[in-house]
Every structure is written in C-alpha cells, then in structure tokens.
C-alpha cells in the first residue's frame, strides 16, 4: 500500500497557518463531552495532556512511573533548539528547517519539519512563561549555545538539565490541570493493549502496577507518547523502564511501525565498565562545544596516560576529517568516527572501546571556572561513574544507543493509520528522518504536545460522536482477557533464565549485529538469533511472584516479550534498506572514505511495517518522500 502523509500542498511557508485554519474546531461547550487518553507523560504526553485539558477536554493520562515528572525526557541535558535568531548569526525558521532535513539525511517529511521549525519559537516563549529558568546573560537576555549539525547558536539551555526543566514546566502545567479537574493522572499504570473497535482506536487496557489489576479505559481518541525503543539494545542511555510496549501493542493491533532501523547512537557516552552494567550514561553533546575528540595516532600509545602522549602523536580525528564542523559534526557521523578509530585498534581505556574528549585547550582559553560553569554537573557525573577527574585528564567517551528516530507511522496530523490513534514525541517517526540533531528531541516533544496535538486531535474529534463507544463494548472485555492470558502464560513458564539475562542476550545480538555498522551477514545472523532467544524466553524464562501484586519481574518480562518481537522488524527494516543514511549504516553502502552513501533513487520513502504475527513476514507499506523546498544533496560536513 502507498501511504499518504496528508501533508498540505502549496508554499511551505504558509502551510501550517493555512492548515490550521482549514481544520475543524470543537465548540467550547462540547469539549467536555469528549474523553482523550494520553499514554506517557514526558514532554509530548505531558504537554499534550495539559494543553488538551486546558482546552476543556477530559483527559486521562497514564505513566508507569510514580509521577509524571519522572518520564525520561527529564534526562535530556544539552538544550532545545529554536529559530529565534537572538544572536543575530543568520538563523531563521528556514535554516532550522534546512538543518533538520539535512541532519536527518533527507528521510523526513518536509511539511512536518517546517511546522516544527515554525513553532520552535513559541515553545521557548511558552517555557519562559512557565518559569523555566533558562540560562540568561547579566542583562537578563536568553543565552544560546551551539550544538552538533548547525553553524548557528540556536540552542537554549538550563545548565546541563534542560530536559528536566522543560519537563518540570510541562509537569507544572499538568499539575495545574489536575487541580482544575480536567486531567486525571494514573501513575504506576502501564498500557498493555490498544482497544480497536471497527478499525478505530477507542481505548486502552492497562495494568495497575501496584495492585496488578487489569483495567479498561475508553476514550474518543488515544494519544501515545510513550517514548523510544532503544532499550532493545539492552544497554542504552534510556531509563530502565523505557520500552516499546505501548507502541508495539498498538502495532499488534494494526498500527504501522515506520523506519524502525533508524536508531541513534550518541557519541558522547561514558564507556561500559563491565558485564554487570545495567545502563549507559550519556553526557551532553554540548561538551563537544569545548571538548576535542582524539585518539593516539599510534596503537602502542593507547595504554599510556593521555598526558604522556605528545601533541604531535594525537589524532584529532573529527577536526581532521570534518574541518568545517570539526568536533560539532552530527551525532551519527561523530559516533561512527569514534567506532572507526577503535576498530583501528586506537581506542583507549578498558577493552580499548573509548576515545578521549579533551578540555585542555578550552580550559587554557577560557579558564577552568568557565568550563565548570558550563558543564560542572557533567564533570561531576563523569567522576562519580568513572572515578576520574575530567578537568585533569581527558574524559573517555564511547557511543551508545540513545534515541529512536523510527516509531509508529503518523500522518501530518500525528494520527497513525488507525483512526483515533495519535502518536507524539519520540514514539512517532516523523521529523528526524534517519538522524536526529542534538537539541531537537525536546523541541519535537513540546511542539507535538503544546502546538500540534491540540489542533489535530480537535479536528478529529469534531468529526465523531463523543462517548459513542465505552468500556462496556465487548472489545474491551476481549482485550482484558488477552492481556490476562499473556500474563498467566508468562507466569506459568517457570523456567531457568531470568528476564535480565535474556534481555542482555538480545541486547548483545542487537548491538553487535544491528548496531552502528550493519551488513547483510550481520543482519541475517541477527534474524536467526532473535527467534531463538524469543523461543528460549517463552520456554525457559523464570518469573517469581504473582499477577495481582507489585511484580517488577512481570513488568520487565512483558516489555522484553515485546522487544523480542519488535527486534525482528527492526532488523528486517535494516536489511531491506539497501543504503546508508543517518543512523542506519550499511557497510555495503559507503563511499571510498567511509561516509554513508544514500540511494535516493530507490529509498526516498518511509518504510512502514505492518506486523503479521511473530515469525510471519511483516508487510511493507511505503510513503514516498518528496523534496520540493530543499534539493536532495549528499550530506557533507567537511
């Protein structure tokens, strides 16, 4: 099937304004008759739930954490982009649009990206009004910093905790609506199924994580803002609870999963220390503003103390390979470059999987106090984890899975192919193409939540009867039974392997075979291994405890079960995409000097996969991408 993204036509500059006018509205007094379910309370879900509540809809919001404030958006450090052009350095909405399309390696929908760039400015204003303490100068004006993939300073930040502050802004807006009674929050509640009635999303089935009770919730529209899926690699920078479960269960009900192979490997993470490690820690990419990446030129220098490697024996590989962007090359490029150096036996630290990020030059230039002011908390974090002082000796960094550009397929309205099911934030596939630029995730989450969903959800609701299907419909009962059946099945296995062990095993396969460099052979190897691990899981996993109590093993098992199905689709997508673009790098498709080589002729489309059951071949649907405002070009940061 050829999918239609329903993007508006005509001049892109006015596309969103014109479209906003064309969309239908719901009369203010009718809004309270509608109920909207929002799954996830991060930037997209939190902002969306708060804004929809403020408009007068009845909103039920769900999160697995004990508070809406703990969604993983909180961990974003570096900043949020906006085309404010406050520094007068040549920025504009068009440039942000251009940078984002180019940064995404020409695999995103133009109209969506334009809209994102346009509302980026409203986001900053909104957050300021909420009391988000953005960095300011002494006169009181907003401060900016630079981020990868851009030659302008357009990133707004709140120390190294921008995600936290933005999320707390959305959380505060949500708290305000909770008090007003428009939003009801269900914390410690995990969505385990989407209820589809006659092809339309009408509700969800959830598990109360405290009591274990399975509950049905009906809604006139369902918004999934449940984040990304890179925990499929087991070790990632995501929170432990991040999973593909909400989106995957929707996919199992017919929602298409788009571009799952576009996964972002972040270049500045703290290297792995051992086998028992449970997660990887990211340090903001903003560090690359002042830090210089290098490895020794000679393999024999790798064991030496970095101070003992003389300047002329150091290879500042990013500056060498990409003179114009240098250390601020986009993430996918910086990550692959680090991997190349380590593959060349010139990595540093334990296992030689690491490169140096050196602040000496910056400290000499601006002084240690300024560096402390800029990145103090990151250095502190680095020291806590590694027991090394980043001011004294260069930090060691290595790439780690960080973000999922892929997600459920959505049209311009952020609505999936299932009417009534909206997907926002990292959970959808929309604006980042094959690679996301730094400081754009926060922008997208809030854009979707504050400024897109309120319009597009209203437009949808205006066309349906409120409360037409409620939780007394037989589909809800059927969904509850399905969920309960899966839980009993899991608890009955009583095998020998723990969920953690099997997740590690899956993660190892995914990292090695479907990680930063993918080949036909590695992908086929993964396609052989994933079903084996899945079988092992369903035959030999051990989960203690019961269904009707707080049972963290059971939660994890359900999430792993979904990863084990999803991993296969991710791998199949990677195998089918016979090109290299952004975060997807196929070793068969690279230039002579190792750069990614796109195949625009054959792959300028969104790959949306329809799940047909575990072990069955999924069906591929394509949405062709058209570039009318930006010329398709080889992405160069040289």
């Amino acid at each position, binding site marked *: 099937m050829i999918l239609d993204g329903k993007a508006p036509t005509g001049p892109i500059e006015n596309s969103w304004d014109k479209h906003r006018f064309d969309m239908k509205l719901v009369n203010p007094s009718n809004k309270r008759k509608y109920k909207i379910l929002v799954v996830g309370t991060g930037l997209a879900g939190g902002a969306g739930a*708060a804004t929809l509540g*403020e408009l007068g809809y009845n909103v039920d919001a769900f999160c697995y*954490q*004990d*508070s809406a*404030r*703990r969604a993983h958006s*909180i*961990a974003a450090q570096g900043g949020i982009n906006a085309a404010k052009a406050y520094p007068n350095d040549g920025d504009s909405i068009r440039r942000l649009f251009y940078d984002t399309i180019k940064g995404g390696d020409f695999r995103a929908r133009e109209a969506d990206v334009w809209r994102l760039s346009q509302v980026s400015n409203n986001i900053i*204003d*909104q957050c*300021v*009004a*909420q*009391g*988000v*303490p*953005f*960095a*300011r100068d*002494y*006169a*009181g*004006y*907003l401060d900016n910093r630079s981020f990868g993939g851009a030659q302008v300073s357009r990133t*707004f930040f*709140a*120390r190294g*905790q921008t995600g*936290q502050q933005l999320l707390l802004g959305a959380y505060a*807006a949500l708290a*305000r609506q*909770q008090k007003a009674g428009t939003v009801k*929050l269900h*914390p410690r509640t995990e969505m385990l199924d989407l209820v589809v009635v006659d092809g339309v999303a009408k509700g969800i089935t959830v598990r109360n994580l*405290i009591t274990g009770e399975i509950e049905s919730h009906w809604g006139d529209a369902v918004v999934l803002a449940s984040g990304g899926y890179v925990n499929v690699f087991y070790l990632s920078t995501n*929170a*432990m609870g991040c999973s593909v479960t909400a989106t995957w269960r929707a996919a199992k009900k017919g929602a298409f999963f788009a571009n799952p192979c576009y996964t972002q490997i972040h270049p500045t993470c703290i290297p792995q*220390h*051992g086998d*028992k*490690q*449970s*997660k990887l*820690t990211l340090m903001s990419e903003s560090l690359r503003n002042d830090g210089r990446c290098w490895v020794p030129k000679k393999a024999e220098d790798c064991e030496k103390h970095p101070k003992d490697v003389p300047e002329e024996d150091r290879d500042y590989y990013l500056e060498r390979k990409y003179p114009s962007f240098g250390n601020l090359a986009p993430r996918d490029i910086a990550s692959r470059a680090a991997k190349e150096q380590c593959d060349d036996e010139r990595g540093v630290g334990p296992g030689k999987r690491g490169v140096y990020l050196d602040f000496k030059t910056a400290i000499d230039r601006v002084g240690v106090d300024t560096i402390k002011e800029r990145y103090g908390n990151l250095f502190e*974090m680095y020291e*806590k*984890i590694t027991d090394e002082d980043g001011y004294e000796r260069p930090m060691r960094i290595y790439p780690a899975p960080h973000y999922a550009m892929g997600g459920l397929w959505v049209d311009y309205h952020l609505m999936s192919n299932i009417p009534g099911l909206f997907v926002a934030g990292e959970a959808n596939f929309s604006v980042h193409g094959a690679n996301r630029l730094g400081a754009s995730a926060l922008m997208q989450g809030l854009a979707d939540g504050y*400024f897109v969903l*309120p319009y597009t959800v209203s437009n949808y609701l205006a066309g349906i009867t409120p409360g037409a299907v409620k939780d007394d419909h037989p589909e809800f009962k059927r969904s509850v039974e399905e969920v309960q059946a899966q839980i009993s099945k899991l608890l009955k296995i009583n095998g*020998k392997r*723990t969920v*953690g062990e099997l997740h590690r095993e899956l993660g190892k396969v995914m990292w090695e075979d479907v990680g930063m460099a993918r080949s036909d052979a590695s992908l086929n190897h993964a396609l052989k291994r994933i079903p084996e691990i899945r079988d092992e899981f369903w035959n030999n996993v*051990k*989960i*203690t*405890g019961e269904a009707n109590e*707080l049972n*963290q*093993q059971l939660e994890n098992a359900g999430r792993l079960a979904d990863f084990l199905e999803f991993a296969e689709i991710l791998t199949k997508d990677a195998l089918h995409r016979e090109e290299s673009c952004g975060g997807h790098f196929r070793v068969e498709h690279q230039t002579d000097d190792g750069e990614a080589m796109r195949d625009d002729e054959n792959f300028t489309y969104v790959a949306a996969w329809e799940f047909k059951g575990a072990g069955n071949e999924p069906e591929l649907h394509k949405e062709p991408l058209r570039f009318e405002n930006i010329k398709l070009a080889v992405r160069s940061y040289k």
Partner: protein
Amino acid sequence: MNLTLHVWRQKGPKAKGKLETYQATNVSEDESFLEMLDEVNEELIKAGKDPIAFDHDCREGICGMCSQVINGKPHGGQERTTVCQLHMRSFADGDEIFIEPWRAKAFPVQKDLIADRSTLETIMQAGGFTSCHTGGVPDGNALLVPKPVADYAMDAAECIGCGACVAGCPNSSAMLYTSAKVAQLAVLPQGKGEAKARVKSMTDALLDEGFGNCTNHYECQDACPKGINVKFIAKLNREYIKSLV
C-alpha cells in the same frame, strides 16, 4: 568484594515488614549500588524467591525515582549523589549495609523499598506552577531575568522530587521540596504575581498531606542529592511573611 545486606522486606502496604539478611558476593567496585542489588535479585529469582522490589528508572541521577535509606542516610549520604549514582567503590569488602525505604507517614511503604510519594504531587498541584495558558504568551526576551536571578531560580529548580529531604528530616517535613518550588517561582517575574497565594496553598497542602513541620534541623540539605540549600526555606519563610501583609 563481598557484602552483607540487611534489607527491609515488606510484602504489601498492610503487611508487617522486617529486615532480612542477604549476601552480595563478587561485587565489583565499578558497579553501581543498584547493579549490585540487580545481582542479588538475579540470585533470588533463580532460587525461586521474590526479588527485592525497589524504585529506579533513569539510573543517572535525574528522574528522582530511586529512594533508599542506606546505613541511615537517604541515598547513602554521599554528597550530591542519588542511590543510582552511588558506586560500590565507596564501600569496603566485608561491609554490612542496611537498606531501608523512605519512612514517613506521608510515604506509606507499598512493597519492600518502594514508598508511595503521591503526597508530593498534591503539594505541587496546590500551586507549584504559573497559571499561563498554552500560547498567547509574550516573547521569551520580553521579561528580562538577569543572570544572578536566573541562577538562583535554577539552583532551586534542580530539585528532582525524590523525597530524600522528607526521609532525612526528623519531622518528616517536605519543607525543602516545597520551598524549592516556591523560591524558584517567587524570584521570576513570571511567577511573582501568584507568589502570595502559592506559598500559602503549598505549605497548607504539606500539612494536609501528613508531613511534619520544619523546625530547622537542616538534615534535608544534607540528604538532598542535588544539594538544594535551606536558604530556600528561609526564602519561603520570607515569602510567607510577605503574604501576610
């Protein structure tokens, strides 16, 4: 290294809990405290026993989910460190470690080391926001906030809402948590308008939710993994006095 753990086990909210002893063996000093507990849990699962339930999520010290009192100190007592950022190198071979949940009337234990902190949410709902609508706000630079003010607000805003201040407080008061939000919004032009109502409604909610009163012990500041200073409680007190006149 090998360690002896005394962990609070409690089946459910109404069940009676007690400390149980476990051995953690072959612990590497590069592991985090939670990774050490993961290992203990793996062993328990394999032995068919119920693993220790504990809250955790981001494991990088920002989500505020992790909440354990270790050897009598919330988050283990290391300066500016959450449990998840606590590493085993700060322990020695043969150590005995006591692990307990947050304890306060306002934080009833749900299972093992997991406490219900929804009372903190109620405090926030009582006024921890500016009443701005989405859209229709002025330009970000329309209201100037000089750097020292922005820095002050940010110092307060770093609170991760973990509840360690309550767990460490002899009175189980959530005053530091409350004051951080009151102070942040009181100094910003965007939040000043509602400052008087906010300080009253938030401190009232604190009492209604069963937290204790602040009697200036300052344990909270030491317990706080983000180093939130009690000067914000002084600021709250100031705001309160202002609200009376």
